[in-house]
């Protein structure tokens, strides 16, 4: 990482971070920072909100208004912040368990409101902080410490979930595709509405070891090999795509944003005041 | 003990008795008295037996619920049967004429065509509650007629003031006759 970028946006005295060697989260965090830098946002007006888990430690290292909340609730706290002060750029950094299991209800309702929050899910397919239990994105059949005989749950397609719930911008990329993450986060922040970016990470410590996926570089290579850009799949059949990670901008639309709609209600009474 | 008047307005849900209770309490405040209004909430918002309670006093009102009442209004048979025993000896029972007169000789009973006046004379069953308030006050003079009329007019929906004023006057006449 360029030292300049780090110095500008990191709380240097809080480093090194707590993530394991080979973890993909550091790359993802940098990609988010790059997006903020590209947009030239005023640091004082940026809030980064997280829940609990490995990904949720990210805000502590970042020099913004940062809020490390309770497990699963980042989007609910963030909704309060955005609603109370719509001038702030609110970015939620969360994980697969945090956003899709314990926080699933907040995810679908924040998406439904189309409130102007950009959510970046660092998806490592496992509960890392607690030591490797299966999560809503652990592929069916894979193992976790609480799925010793293989996971029988069907895993979530988070982007489809977010889009179905009303998110007006969704995209997916991986830690291997750092520049794409940056581009998607950047466009997500620019989108006036709820934006959802699934950022696939790697967890060699728990998910990788439990499922014999090799070391960090093997796992990164898998992200590279398994990914296919949404632009390139037009002529492919579903069968060809079964084991593929579809990356890129998946959905982008314009719909009324929540805090702007509320502002209209307030403005109705302005003349009376 | 401090003299306070305890009033129970009963009937079926949707007859507007809680609003009547609120209006009566507001009239008492306009008279410079204290008043507490409460109601029983059931899970059902409409239908069934419903009651509103009002306590009016010159002094502070502590215990806010009505136990034995001085005045009982019943617009339905069901409500009358349910609450009759809560009326004190010497109390005033005001019944709609559709309700059978109960067998109690220790109370004063006034049987008046409240609902009929609302439907036939005024053409709107929903002003039964205001007719009832007028009648209740015509009989008992519990608050000043002036305050009660003022309270009625400040609470009813805009555009229905004339109708409600008529309903109130009709009720007052019923009560005084």
């Amino acid at each position, binding site marked *: 990482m360029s030292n300049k970028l780090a110095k500008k946006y990191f*709380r240097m005295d*809080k480093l090194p971070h707590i993530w394991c060697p080979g973890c993909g989260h550091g790359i993802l965090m940098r990609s988010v920072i790059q997006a903020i830098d590209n947009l030239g946002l005023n*640091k*004082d007006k940026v*809030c980064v*909100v997280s829940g609990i888990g490995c990904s949720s430690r990210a*805000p*502590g290292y970042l*020099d*913004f*208004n*940062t*809020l*490390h*909340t*309770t497990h699963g*609730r980042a989007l*609910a*706290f*963030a*909704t*309060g*912040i*955005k*609603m*109370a*002060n719509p*001038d*702030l750029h609110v970015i939620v950094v969360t994980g697969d368990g945090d956003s899709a299991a314990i926080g699933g*209800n*907040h995810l*679908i*309702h924040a998406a439904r409101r189309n409130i102007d929050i950009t959510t970046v899910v660092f998806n490592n397919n496992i509960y890392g902080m607690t030591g490797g239990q299966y999560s809503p994105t652990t592929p069916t059949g894979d193992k976790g410490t609480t799925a010793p005989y293989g996971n029988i749950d069907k895993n979530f397609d988070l982007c489809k979930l977010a889009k179905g719930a009303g998110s007006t911008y969704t995209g997916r990329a991986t830690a291997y595709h750092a520049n794409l993450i940056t581009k998607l986060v950047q466009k997500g922040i620019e989108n006036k509405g709820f934006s959802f970016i699934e950022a696939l990470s790697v967890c060699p410590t728990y998910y990788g070891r439990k499922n014999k996926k090799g070391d960090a570089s093997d796992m990164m290579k898998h992200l590279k090999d398994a990914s296919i850009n949404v632009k390139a799949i037009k002529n492919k059949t579903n069968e060809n795509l079964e084991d593929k990670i579809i990356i890129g901008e998946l959905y982008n639309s314009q719909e009324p944003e929540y805090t702007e709609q*509320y502002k209209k*209600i*307030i403005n*109705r*009474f302005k003349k*009376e*005041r | *003990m401090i003299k306070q008047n305890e009033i129970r307005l009963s009937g079926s849900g949707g007859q507007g008795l809680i609003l009547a209770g*609120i209006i009566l*309490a*507001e009239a008492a*405040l306009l008279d410079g008295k*204290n*008043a*507490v*209004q*409460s109601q029983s*909430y*059931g*899970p059902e918002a409409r239908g069934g037996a419903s009651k509103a309670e009002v306590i009016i006093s010159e002094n502070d009102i*502590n*215990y*806010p*619920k009505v*136990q034995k009442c001085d005045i009982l209004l019943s617009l339905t048979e069901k409500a009358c049967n349910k609450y009759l025993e809560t009326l004190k000896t010497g109390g005033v029972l005001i019944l709609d004429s559709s309700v059978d007169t109960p067998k109690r000789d220790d109370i004063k009973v006034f049987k008046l065509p409240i609902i009929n006046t609302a439907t036939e004379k005024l053409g709107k069953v929903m002003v039964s509650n205001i007719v009832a308030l007028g009648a209740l006050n015509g009989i008992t003079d519990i608050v000043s007629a002036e305050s009660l009329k003022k*309270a009625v007019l*400040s609470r009813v929906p805009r555009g229905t003031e004339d109708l409600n004023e008529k309903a109130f006057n009709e009720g007052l006449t019923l009560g005084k006759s």
Partner: protein
Amino acid sequence: MEKNNIKLMQGNEACVEGALAAGMNFFAGYPITPSTEIAEISSQRLPRFGGKFIQMEDEIASMAATIGGALTGAKAMTATSGPGFSLKQENIGYAAMAEIPCVIVNVQRGGPSTGLPTSPAQGDVMQAKWGTHGDHPIIALTPSSVKETFDTTVKAFNLAEKYRVPVVLLMDEVIAHMREKIEIPKKEDVEIMDRIKPDEDDVTYQAYEVKKGDIVPPMASFGEGFRYHVTGLVHDETGFPSNDTEVADKLIHRLVDKIDKNVDDISFYEEYKTNDIDTLIISYGSTARSAKTAVDMANNEGMNVGLFRPITIWPTLEKQIIDLAKKVDKIIVAEMNLGQYALEVERLASKYTQVHHLGKIDGDLITPNEILSKIKEV
């Protein structure tokens, strides 16, 4: 009814009026009987003043959003009842730990579980203090009339700001739904406290450092340029997490001490006819209204009975209870539960006097006659 600002008003309505008078400009809630009117009236009133109302997807989210709103500088409130109060607890603990000023109204209803949704109870006294995990500060106030609901809501906001704590307004269904006379004070007659904030140019600002002479750290709002970190983890004066045992010990003691050492400032209560008595009733909320009537009835019959009515439920009014306990032969604690505040009274008073309990959990308000009978029985 505008004459002299005297109105007939419901307790829930008075709560919102008090909150607005105190400066509430943010409300996040979820519908639940018997507190729903507080959300309804807030949704109607707030946008008219440029304030914000949001109905969240659940109780947990409304507590979270309330905290989020407060972090941007808003005076924030949420309202609920027993089941929702249970769900909010983790985030109430977060507010205690991260020192976020906010007000949580709990209109108590019969429990446990769904219980008696439309009936009064006072069964959440212990939950208000111990509902979240760990040792933490909390203030809980319980009004006994519509007028006092207004005043106590103002106090709740002021204390939340002054001590940077979640303050619980512990109402009950009777007070919430009854209508009675209230005179709304003029704006200039309502005392309002605001949180202390860092100087704009304070380059040494540490989010959780208490300056000499202050009770709590000054609180910057998100977006004002201080870019600090807030966490529910044990944190040091900078606000960043720490595993250090000394840091943990110091933090939790500071949080608890800011309330414990300022009890006098947080103590609100009423003593009614407590001179030269042999029997003392302790009762609060709507039950205290029955107790007051019972005291009058007993004294008319020649007995010597008085009432102590805590408005501050937490922290416990230890000094006042001990002083009174020393003067009377017996205490009767009357409350709509099976003995919650009574445990506090027993803890403090049983050394000096007999402590009896009158509890009721059937969904009806305790009557004056029931209290009178208990007085005669003991």
